């Protein structure tokens, strides 16, 4: 049952990911990307990562709704009214991607992965919370500072006066 769910979600995630670059409207592309993220969130739920799975689902819904607004702003082909290609050097990019996928797949099946060490905790969320508030607190602090820096930098970049002030 879980195997079937995994494969269905995996195929959906990759198909939705590919659809992002196939559909001819950037708004549709945003929702295709959202579908891909939702499938990945569900995959995390399958391996007991309940908190992280739900976090991915909730965060990506919000993120993609914000993204949809920007997509409409920068849309190259509004409502399919101006058909045009959004790609350059598609063949080269496809070649590189397929070659990389073949290399990664070969590596995945060739590498002798280590044995499983330990067992999943009864409550992975509790373990995660305890570690980011304990031994891994530095990670949490760096994330916090990074988010703060991003908020300030994004506002500075996006305001009308820009990076160099009014007279630039």
């Amino acid at each position: 049952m879980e195997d079937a769910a995994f494969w269905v979600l995996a195929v959906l995630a990759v198909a939705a990911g590919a659809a992002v670059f196939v559909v001819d409207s950037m708004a549709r592309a945003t929702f295709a990307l959202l579908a891909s993220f939702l499938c990945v969130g569900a995959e995390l739920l399958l391996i007991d990562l309940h908190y992280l799975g739900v976090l991915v689902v909730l965060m990506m819904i919000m993120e993609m709704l914000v993204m949809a607004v920007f997509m409409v702003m920068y849309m190259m082909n509004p409502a399919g009214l101006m058909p045009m290609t959004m790609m350059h050097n598609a063949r080269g990019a496809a070649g590189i991607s397929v070659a990389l996928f073949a290399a990664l797949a070969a590596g995945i099946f060739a590498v002798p992965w280590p044995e499983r060490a330990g067992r999943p905790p009864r409550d992975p969320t509790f373990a995660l919370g305890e570690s980011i508030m304990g031994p891994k607190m530095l990670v949490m602090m760096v994330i916090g500072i990074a988010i703060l820096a991003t908020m300030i930098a994004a506002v500075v970049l996006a305001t009308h006066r820009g990076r160099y002030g009014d007279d630039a």
Partner: protein
Amino acid sequence: MTLETFLLLAAALFCVGLFGALSQQSVVMLMMGLELMINGVVVAAAGFWFWVSPGLPDGQVLVLVAITVMALEMAMGFAVVTALFRARDVDMTDDAGDLKG
């Protein structure tokens, strides 16, 4: 469901994202490719946590970092695109070659 199949899914997502990041003309679409690549990283980190060392929370912390990176990348990307568009009316990668060379 094994580690291999999970990593295969991660590799597929990463490569689809790489194709987008390399081939798209619009800076915003390029960012969607980057998001898909980080999506692959999330899947791989979660798979490693579950099948290699589920006893330690390190893998989960890595997933948390990757999700944060995803959100920050989008915020900064849109800020840069907006600044670029304001300054030069440009939203295509081909026209934004200032750092080239």
